[in-house]
């Protein structure tokens, strides 16, 4: 069966990996023991694992993303430690290859994506005045498939070996000929499973946003975050199937000996590069656009002004989405496409700077003459604008096909995309978490710790990645596990490594902030603590599971702000309460997660017969779902009025903050 030797099943002989194995085992034991000791098994099954509530699914996405941030961050720190001095011996070249590969995959697909999809899950139905997404159980399945893929990918480094061909996994390197071990199978299969979940999320959110908006919520009255989520979902549906095919063909090449990307028998390795980036470039915007949406919400709220140039913002978002589909070749100008093709893609790439620039100016004009409140969330948005602009401008430098021959595969590129993705995504996620935390949990994150988190992370980020621009211009290549002392790179590499420690300290403060706030933060807060503008703040914090007792009616943009201003639609009379229909919980998505994980694991090891047997489970799960006619349940009026009275004080407490 397969081609793995049993003594290679567990990775042995590396003290770092041994440490990881021990800590994974201890953590798992700890979780199992903790759940048993606290008698929480039933609770976690009923309230979380089987939930179809979009808010809880969103929170699970966010928890998973924080864990993955930790894992990917450790990878980053190891790389920085390895390159902190010339000729370091901390990591072998093979180990370094594995670590930059998993760092990239995890940070993009298992950190950035779930963070943003998590926030979308929590916020979007609330912002459009809906009680859930269009397909709640499918939503749970999306999460569990993502989780299955993420876990499968993460066990690779202790069982069987990590993928080591880079997050782009270019052929022929990633093919069987040059990577004969099963390690790269993890890449193909884990991403495939997670990708199915993402595609379902895309479909779910398009239908939710198109079909479930509350009365009066026209498309051009939707909050900016909802708009970006809609456009992102569109890109997901248009781009992810390409990746699905690319990964499937990769599997065929690796598992069944076909010749799509091989050098021999007529295959084309450049075909992989094209397919990968046909998905990979839009993927950048899949994560960047919702982030822009978050900044739009945060900046408008904390400037106490309506978002400047809303319409142009919407058109710019759509424009970026369209352009994102026609720029993919700029990732491989040097691979022989020729000057004509390169020029075309240089142009399209530079064009993206136009709608992005419109957005930057809109944010600046939103703040102009606003009453800016420097909350933690707003600080992230403020820091985003200059740092992201550096990322954008260096992006235009890279976009020039001829000049790119100089920058290609150097640390200049690495610095560029970290300057895009960290301010453009991670800052946004932090801003979003500080902003929506009270909506999710009914208490705020500590603002003082938030400032420590902000400053450490920001300074650390700039000290880590700014030197990499200059290293790259001096000729330091990416993905190289070491360099000589004569190269003269040592001082900047050391500076960068020091920066990464500060960055990590910032993240540690964030984790501590979560812990501190859960334990000590004031629970007695308003449901609208920021005096915000959109509908998610028109209901309780944390949000009751049916979201709105009475669906709000929207009369203008910034609906909740206008409701507060005109003092209408804020109160609830007992006579207005009606029964609410809600979907039932289901264990099926979680079971599918387990089955997909098992099938994926067998396929990784090329054990086809067990995989075939296990995949019968997938069919059974689908049939079970088809015959499931559970139509949900109704929440009785008494229960709703009881829940509502706990957060609406005498006159409806949303009144308190009217500005």
């Amino acid at each position, binding site marked *: 069966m397969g081609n793995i030797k049993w003594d290679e099943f567990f990775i042995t002989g590396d003290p770092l990996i041994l440490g990881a194995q021990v800590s994974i085992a201890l953590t798992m034991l700890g979780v199992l023991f903790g759940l048993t000791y606290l008698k929480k098994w039933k609770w976690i099954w009923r309230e979380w694992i089987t939930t179809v509530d979009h808010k809880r699914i969103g929170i699970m996405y966010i928890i998973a993303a924080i864990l993955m941030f930790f894992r990917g961050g450790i990878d980053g720190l190891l790389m920085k430690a390895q390159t902190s001095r010339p000729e370091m011996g901390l990591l072998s070249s093979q180990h370094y290859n594995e670590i930059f590969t998993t760092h990239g995959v995890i940070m993009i697909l298992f950190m950035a994506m779930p963070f943003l999809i998590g926030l979308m899950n929590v916020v979007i139905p609330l912002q459009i005045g809906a009680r859930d997404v269009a397909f709640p159980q499918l939503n749970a399945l999306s999460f569990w498939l993502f989780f299955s893929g993420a876990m499968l990918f993460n066990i690779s480094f202790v069982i069987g070996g990590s993928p080591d061909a880079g997050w782009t996994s270019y052929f022929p390197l990633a093919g069987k000929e040059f990577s004969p071990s099963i390690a790269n199978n993890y890449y193909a299969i884990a991403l495939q499973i997670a990708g199915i979940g993402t595609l379902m999320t895309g479909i779910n959110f398009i239908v939710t946003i198109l*079909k479930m908006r509350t009365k009066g919520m026209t498309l051009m009255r939707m909050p900016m975050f909802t708009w970006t989520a809609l456009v992102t979902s569109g890109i997901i549906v248009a781009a*992810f199937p*390409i990746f699905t*095919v690319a990964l499937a063909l990769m599997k065929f090449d690796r598992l069944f000996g076909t010749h799509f990307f091989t050098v021999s028998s007529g295959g*084309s390795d450049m075909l992989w590069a094209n397919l990968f980036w*046909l998905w990979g470039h839009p993927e950048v915007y899949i994560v960047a656009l919702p982030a822009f949406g978050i900044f739009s919400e945060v900046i408008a709220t904390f400037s106490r002004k309506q978002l400047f140039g809303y319409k142009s913002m919407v058109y710019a978002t759509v424009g970026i989405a369209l352009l994102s589909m026609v720029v993919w070749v700029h990732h491989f100008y040097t691979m022989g496409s020729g000057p004509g093709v390169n020029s075309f893609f240089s142009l399209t790439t530079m064009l993206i700077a136009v709608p992005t620039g419109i957005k930057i100016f809109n944010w600046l004009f939103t703040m102009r003459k606003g009453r800016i409140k420097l909350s933690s969330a707003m600080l992230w948005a403020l820091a985003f604008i200059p740092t992201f602009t550096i990322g954008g401008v260096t992006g235009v430098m890279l976009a020039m096909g001829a000049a790119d021959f100089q920058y290609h595969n150097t640390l200049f590129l690495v610095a560029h995309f970290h300057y895009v993705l960290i301010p453009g995504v991670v800052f946004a996620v932090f801003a979003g978490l500080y902003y929506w935390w009270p909506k999710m949990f009914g208490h705020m994150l500590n603002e003082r710790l938030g400032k420590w988190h902000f400053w450490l992370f920001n300074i650390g980020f700039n000290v880590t990645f700014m030197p990499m621009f200059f290293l790259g211009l001096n000729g330091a290549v990416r993905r190289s596990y070491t360099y000589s002392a004569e190269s003269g790179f040592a001082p900047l590499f050391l500076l960068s490594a020091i920066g990464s420690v500060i960055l990590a300290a910032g993240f540690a403060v964030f984790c501590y902030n979560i812990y501190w706030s859960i334990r000590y933060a004031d629970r007695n807060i308003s449901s609208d603590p920021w005096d915000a503008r959109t509908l998610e703040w028109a209901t309780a914090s944390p949000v009751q599971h049916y979201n709105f007792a009475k669906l709000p009616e929207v009369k203008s943009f910034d609906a909740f702000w206008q409701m507060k201003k005109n003092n209408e639609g804020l109160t609830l009379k007992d006579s207005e309460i009606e029964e609410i*229909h809600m979907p039932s919980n289901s264990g099926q998505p979680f079971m599918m997660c387990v089955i997909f994980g098992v099938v994926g694991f067998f396929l990784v090891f090329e054990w086809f017969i067990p995989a075939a047997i296990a995949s019968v489970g997938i*069919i059974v799960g689908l049939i079970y779902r088809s015959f499931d006619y559970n139509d949900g349940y109704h929440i009785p009026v008494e229960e709703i009025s009881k829940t509502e009275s706990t957060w609406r004080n005498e006159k409806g407490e949303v009144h308190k903050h009217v500005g």
Partner: protein
Amino acid sequence: MSANVNTSLPLEYQTHQSRMNILGFWIFLGAEIVLFATLFAVYAVLYQNYAGGPTHQDIIMIKEVMIQTLLLLTSSFTCGLAIYEMRRNNVKGLISWLVITLLLGAGFLFMEINEFIHYIHEGATMQTSAFLSSFFVLLGTHGAHVTLGIGWAIIVIIQLIKRGLTPVTARKIFIIGLYWHFLDVVWIFIFTFVYLKGMVG
């Protein structure tokens, strides 16, 4: 949600949840179009890379393929008749036409599998050349979709027999109809760009 039933619409469109399901499925078909478009693009890149192995003219059995095409196109027509009977509230007619549709689909599948076996006996396997890799995966993906469609339709027919024509079963039938027609459209492209174009070199 199950509320707000609009009885002026066809059965499958009457509830809000059904309307959302149908829209969601259309979007899913959009994703399927991208999926097949990618496979066609791969085929377009690799279709002349014979690597010394058999070419189109060496292997294609155009007569059998012609019959497959007729079977599948007819099944699309009978599927349309099934939906027509559903609109007329004729459950018996609906089930009959669905069963005929599936039999035609199974006939198509049977012939396709035979065709593949024949190719493999002639030494034209997935591993032979890039052309054959892309050929088998493109056609195999379509065939796998047809297989899945048959299994899925059987499950829904069982529900139809058990529950009769309700807004939910009607919606499920309607969605399978969309899926079935989609597979037909994909086949037309395969027939044109793989078989016919392959025959003329």
